[in-house]
């Protein structure tokens, strides 16, 4: 009857499993990695030794890495077969978040650009009427 035990096939997000040691270890590793990444982020933002224009991109990469650490070690979202539904939902959420953010920023930057002084090309088009 083990086939009818749903716990074997799916786990809820955020639910710790296995033994006391591995569960605690998961949170401790997560805390350590998160502290490390946070520390690097603050250091990267404060130091003047790095190439200026790349710092913002580096910070975003560090933030995404830390979100991954939180997802894996705190929320226990893994690539295991018992986690398929949670990962699929997460992937869809990330897709929508990506579309909303990148779409808005690109479109608004474009419109902001167009609202400025009319370009030569636009003037020429208007002259042709």
């Amino acid at each position, binding site marked *: 009857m083990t086939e009818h035990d749903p716990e074997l096939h799916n786990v809820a997000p955020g639910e710790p499993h296995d033994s006391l040691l591995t569960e605690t270890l998961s949170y401790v590793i997560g805390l350590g990695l998160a502290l490390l990444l946070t520390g690097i*982020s603050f250091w990267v933002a404060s130091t003047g030794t790095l190439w200026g224009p790349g710092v913002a991109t580096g910070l975003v990469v560090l933030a995404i890495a830390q979100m991954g650490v939180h997802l894996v070690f705190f929320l226990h979202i893994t690539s295991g077969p018992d986690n398929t539904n949670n990962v699929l939902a997460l992937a869809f959420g990330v897709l929508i978040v990506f579309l909303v953010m990148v779409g808005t920023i690109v479109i608004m930057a474009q419109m902001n650009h167009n609202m400025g002084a009319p370009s030569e090309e636009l003037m020429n088009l208007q002259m042709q009427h």
Partner: protein
Amino acid sequence: MSTHAEAAAVGLTHQGSEDTGLGHRGPESKSIVVPYGFWLFILSDMVLFSALFASYATLVHATDGGPDTNQLFDRKLVAVETLALLSSSFVCGLAMIAAKRKNMQLTQVWLLLTGLTGLVFLGIELFEFGKMIGEGAGPQRSAFLSSFFTLVGCHGAHVTAGLLWLGTMMAQIWAKGFRQDIIRRLLCFSVFWHALDIIWVAIFTIVYLIGTLP
């Protein structure tokens, strides 16, 4: 026998390989379905925040001659806030481990610590908001400040709601013990709390660190 065969023919039974539309094993147990539904809510909350992040990124330079990010934000305060929220998330995980083993004392102690570190975070945030508004940099000053207070304030409102929820959970565990439904609620709370920390990672990076680059 004949009724069973009829039921099987229209697919209303769990026997054999008939498809119930809910998988071969029928619907999942409540301990899976409830946190999964809450996980979907958390993801939709992330989508809400992504809209606020997008409007912040669009309006960040629209300062209307008022103070900009470099003049307003203090990195040391943000570092303390980040540490407070991160340790809160960690201790919340320890509370979940204790709750799973039905250890009342440890669960309550860890949950209390979760709440206290959450309060430290909220206190610093309110102090920062009060200081900014006192300096004339309130949400009505410029489009940049409106979007800043909406984004960070929305996260702060979530933390406030989480603290109220946390207090309720401590009382429920105390009064009703580690019942199956109470454990489910506690699990949902921990997912909520960890998700707030994930959103804070995005806020301290995009708003505070990138905003105060030289």
